[in-house]
């Protein structure tokens, strides 16, 4: 199976986080705000050119850049 990341999700689409790319410079803050393996995420909205993307995570909404979303590996 091909590896997918969160930046590829469409508006309204939902998935489960499998892992985070620790090499991404923002990895620590991405995890700190709640993106951890096993959590469900859903795309709430996308700005112009699909960047940044707003995700629902652990009962709140967090906007992150497309490049940061691409470090979140999903099912």
């Amino acid at each position, binding site marked *: 199976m091909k590896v997918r990341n969160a930046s590829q999700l469409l508006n309204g689409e939902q998935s489960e986080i499998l892992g985070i790319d620790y090499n991404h410079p923002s990895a620590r803050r991405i995890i700190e705000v709640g993106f951890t393996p096993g959590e469900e995420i859903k795309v709430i909205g996308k700005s112009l050119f699909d960047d940044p993307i707003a995700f629902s995570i*652990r009962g*709140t909404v967090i906007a992150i850049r497309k490049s940061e979303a691409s470090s979140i590996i999903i099912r």
Partner: protein
Amino acid sequence: MFTISLVGPPNSGKTTLFNKLSGQKIKTVNYPGATVDYFSADFDKKYEINAHLIDTPGIISLIPTSIDEIITIEGIYSHPEFGTPDLIITTIDASQLSRHLILVNDLIEANFNVVVIITMNDILARKNFSIDENKLSEELNLPVFKIDLTKDNGIDELIHFIKTEVENNFEKRVINKISEDTFTLVNKYNRISEIEKKVLFPTKTNSKNITKDFNNLHKPDEISLKIDSVLLNGTWGLLIFFLAMSVTFASVFWLASPIMDLIDSAFALSSESILGIWGNNWFTQLLANGLIAGFGSVAVFIPQILILFLILGILEDTGYLARGAMLVDKPLSKIGLNGRSFAPMVSGFACAVPAIMAARTIPNKRERLLTIFILPLLSCSARIPVYLLLIGFLVPTTGSLTAGIILASIYLLSIISSLVAAGIINKLKNKVITEQDHSSFILELPTYKIPRLNNVFFNAYLSTKSYITGAGPIIMIFSVILWALTFFPAGIDNSIYNENDSFEQELIENSYASNIGKFLEPAVSPLGVDWRVGVAIITSFAAREVFVSSMALMFQVNISDEDSIQKSLLKNMQKAKKSDGTKVFTTSSIIGLIVFFIIAMQCVSTLAITKKETGSWRIPILQFFIYTFSAYFLAVISVNLINFFGIA
């Protein structure tokens, strides 16, 4: 004295709790290398607790990613004035338990003496869940209290706890730095998620599927999601966003200008009365034209700045400002800025001083410095009197549509110039801004809320105060220096006042300012104006609005006229001739001056605060030379282009 710090994630009810516990005497806490930001207070007298209470800005963990987080976290570890806190009160949102427990976990790891306050229990109840605080206390091995901040339920128990701590706890703890390892962070989260499952229980007893209930718990606020489906929708979202921003600016302008006029006339009146009552001598002149005029030029912007910060505060408190930052992040990142540059940029239209301080929330160093670099290009309120005077010359009928369009174009031009400057400086890689850092945008979009007006008012008051204390003294000092330059040496001789009514003209013509102006005339003649405007421009480097009062001095406005100062100044400007007999003010020279004022870096306070915030003179010096010379050359080009096409 016993010191208690309030520490918590953003939007966890920390400030509300601070306001509940603190007494009347709230003061801002200053940090080395930083200005305002957070508050300390004594406890409200009715609680009978003898301790310092410190509020700190919201943080996510004890590992900082931006300057304001570094300052905050260093302050939690060891405050320069109060030392290490004897007790930390941390607030966590019950409906955000797992995310907010990460900070609690860090505080435990660092070995602080911590008490946990659970807020927003009503939101959790709406999701049909409740929290067992005793269980949580057991899991964390910390005291835990549930508090309903709207009804004060549970506050007595907390007060009782604090009292016993203050009386009995003299233990000095050894505080550790915490691990920055990213791998262990995921394990921490997993442990916390386990705790969350143990302490939360569904309130609906007939529920069959606990897992499904937990999934519902982890769904964001329904109403906010509905609003966001419109406001975060690409094209519509942007359209509504630009509309909201335009309405903001228009309303700031229309609300503030009548109050500004009132303040202006009040100060002009008191200057006149002083001269009228005590006559003319060096002391009354200093009082009326130096001190009071200087004080007036600080005071006149207060309404504009206060109203803009009020509206900005309302936008922030409703949760919309975070959405705005998200919507503009992509275009701003193209020119080296960040979505988080957006709020400082809007503040820049009021005053660059608080705006530059607000840029601290940008985590990336390069983006922060670039934001600070371009902020002086956004037309601050000090330029408004200048624009109004110059537009008044071009369009004699006040309040007309044409005047409005010109003013709007000036603002548009100022936005464009700031974006172009950012783009160019960003393209120059490390020539202007040497710092490099990885760019990031991670921002929580909080639930939409009805703004808490007392919070909004308090923050607007603080920002306005930072303008008054930051820019005020410098404007005052320069107003007095400016007055001295236009007064001496002729003003010392008292006979000058008795000779004729137009002694003010004589004063100026024989002053140091006119010597400087005449010396610099070759520099201003390419702008199509003479030395008198040159003097006014020089004085505007203290603060831009000083230009208007200098113009009034240079072109001998007689206050005893029936017209307002502005009207009689405009009349005199129409008549003013250069030594060769041609008019000083033409369409081209006025537009040249407008262009100059949009771009030139003419504010001493801005340079001073930039030096303070960037840590060196490099950036303010670059700003000064780049902007002032570009302003000059662009103004000269505009004047010549307009003359070339023969517009009178």
